[in-house]
């Protein structure tokens, strides 16, 4: 579904990703962990198409598309979703209205019929029930005046509604209390299916207790330096990122 090969990315002249490789198949959940500044958020932003990232080498295939050639809205319509680390406030724009416009823009791109208000509301009700989100969030402006937890919930709600093929969660757990964390995890788990994949970017192992990944990758200095199953996350938790550094040292000196 997603194939990243030798991805090099510069931000403001500084190389952040230095030859990253990652393959994600449908149905899989990949966790990406790593120390601050390793390039985790850069990866999420580059995949979603944010401006300001210069791709100097590498390819990213998403399904049968060359992802890097697509505009952000085209990537969304192709089924890529980024849950923001810091969801953005849009004052005065009703959350429901925003989502309806977004969903219909995606459907239009895919050649599907647009949903009318009744159909859309029905869909919203369905999703709300599953996610245990109060519909009060729907009547407010997009993220405006939301608490940190509410913003993250709203991201998950958007994800549920837009039903992406690949969802990237960029530190969705940061700043969440345990209840909110569980709710986010529940939302993700509920959406897990054979044709949908997730990339969960996180600092902490904690989230992975609830969203159990198929693979765990450690991103350090712009590259995936270690991959393994869920036990890798536990080892990281135990030993810290320095442990990875030490393990890499011999390899490093060989280069």
């Amino acid at each position: 579904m997603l194939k990243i090969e030798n991805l090099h990315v510069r931000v403001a002249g500084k190389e952040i990703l230095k030859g990253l490789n990652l393959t994600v198949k449908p149905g899989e959940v990949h966790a990406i962990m790593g120390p601050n500044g390793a390039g985790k958020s850069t990866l999420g932003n580059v995949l979603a198409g944010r401006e300001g990232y210069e791709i100097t080498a590498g390819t990213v295939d998403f399904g049968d598309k060359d992802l890097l050639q697509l505009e952000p809205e085209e990537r969304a319509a192709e089924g890529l979703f980024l849950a923001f680390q810091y969801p953005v406030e849009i004052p005065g724009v009703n959350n429901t209205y925003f989502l309806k416009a977004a969903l219909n823009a995606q459907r239009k791109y895919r050649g599907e019929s647009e949903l009318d208000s009744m159909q859309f509301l029905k869909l919203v009700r369905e999703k709300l029930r599953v996610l245990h989100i109060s519909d009060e969030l729907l009547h407010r402006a997009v993220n405006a005046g939301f608490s940190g937890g509410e913003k993250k919930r709203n991201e998950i709600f958007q994800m549920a509604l837009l039903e992406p093929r690949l969802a990237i969660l960029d530190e969705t757990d940061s700043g969440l209390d345990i209840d909110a964390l569980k709710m986010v995890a529940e939302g993700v788990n509920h959406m897990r299916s054979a044709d949908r994949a997730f990339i969960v970017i996180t600092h902490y192992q904690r989230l992975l207790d609830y969203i159990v990944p198929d693979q765990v990758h450690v991103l350090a200095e712009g590259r995936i330096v270690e991959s393994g199953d869920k036990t890798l996350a536990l080892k990281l938790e135990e030993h810290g990122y320095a442990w990875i550094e030490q393990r890499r040292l011999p390899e490093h000196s060989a280069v």
Partner: protein
Amino acid sequence: MATERNDIENALNRRYEAGFVTDIETEYLPPGLSEDVIRQLSAKKNEPQWMTDWRLKAYRHWLTMPVPEWAKLRIGPIDFQAISYYAAPKARPKSLDDVDPKLLETYDKLGVPLHERAKLAGVAVDAVFDSVSVGTTFRKELAEAGVIFCSMSEAIREHAELVQQYLGSVVPVGDNYFAALNSAVFSDGSFVFIPKGVRCPMELSTYFRINAMNTGQFERTLIVAEDASYVSYLEGCTAPQRDENQLHAAVVELVALADAQIKYSTVQNWYPGDENGVGGIYNFVTKRGDCRGARSKISWTQVETGSAITWKYPSCVLRGDDSTGEFYSVALTHHAQQADTGTKMIHIGRNTKSKIISKGISAGRGQNSYRGLVKVEKSAEGARNYTQCDSLLIGKKCGAHTFPYIEVKHPRAIVEHEATTSKISDDQLFYCRSRGLGEEDAVSMIVDGFCKQVFKELPMEFAVEAKKLLEVSLEGAVG
């Protein structure tokens, strides 16, 4: 991205949909301004002597006045002798059924059908084409309710007493440079009279259309709401796309007697000029409402998307005790457009309240100034004002400016002023796009959110139109 930008620009150039010219036989007064011209104008309109004298008085006063230069606007010199002060379709219909089909077609194209059976049912329209009113719909229905809704020319002939009583009573002939000019040469406009206790049964609206070349449009509107009456009035305007600047200098006077309410909404879409600032309407307008009676209320809502230059300060004189003035404004400047707009709230009566919500949007090289005065006189015990003034910038070359003037002569008056300036951030745009919205849609959605407080004050049909206009006006603003 480069090719895409061109596409956007092409689309934009196409997009002033009201920019066409109607080919119709037109009668002009030759360009130039003098006492003779005013007499001819007055004669053409079969006006009584008092009206001619009123005009001449205004003209003589105007001659003594300097062109105002205090606004933050760059205005090329206006040659008042090069303008024709009267242009009208030659055929003068006796009723709506006789109106030249070309004119009907023009208004159809603009989305303002003049057939009463047509889709604008429920809104009575006075259509002003260049210097004259070409038709007013639903007159019979309105007359049954006792409402007078007709062209100003007709009012001067048929309702002279009312006109004499109220005309110039809110905006005196010598009020300001452009008001004086208007008083001297105004050609047509609408007259509305709502008698005591009547709630006007439908929305009233005037649609102003400039068509002829090298002419100015100087309309004059007067709305009088007697005790405990109510009226909602809408105004729309468009003009052809031309390289020359054209002058529009209007005066609108509102009078609200005790317990009366007037709601006045404008969607201004005069031709704004091209992206280099060539052409476009110079829009110099004096709008003022007088809350003359106790507990009266006047509410101005304006959406200003057109014109090369907008100079406009719809105001309220809060004379009656417990009267209320409101001003809701969205002003957008794109490309080389300039706007200096705002309001004046003059608190005279006791417990008078005013509220100002102003939203300025600047894109391209647009310059947008809010200029507002809140004045509380000694007599205005218990006066309150709330002002909120927000500016939104799109791009790096535009400007937003705020000039609030506050004069308070009563020690216990409460005057609040809040102002913000923000940019559409890359974060907001990216957020919207990452959810699947195209860039243009994202911008218009963010702008729409920004304007929400004002749009919700507009009558429904107008709110939809206003939103569309903003979208069109902002095309090509990002990228």
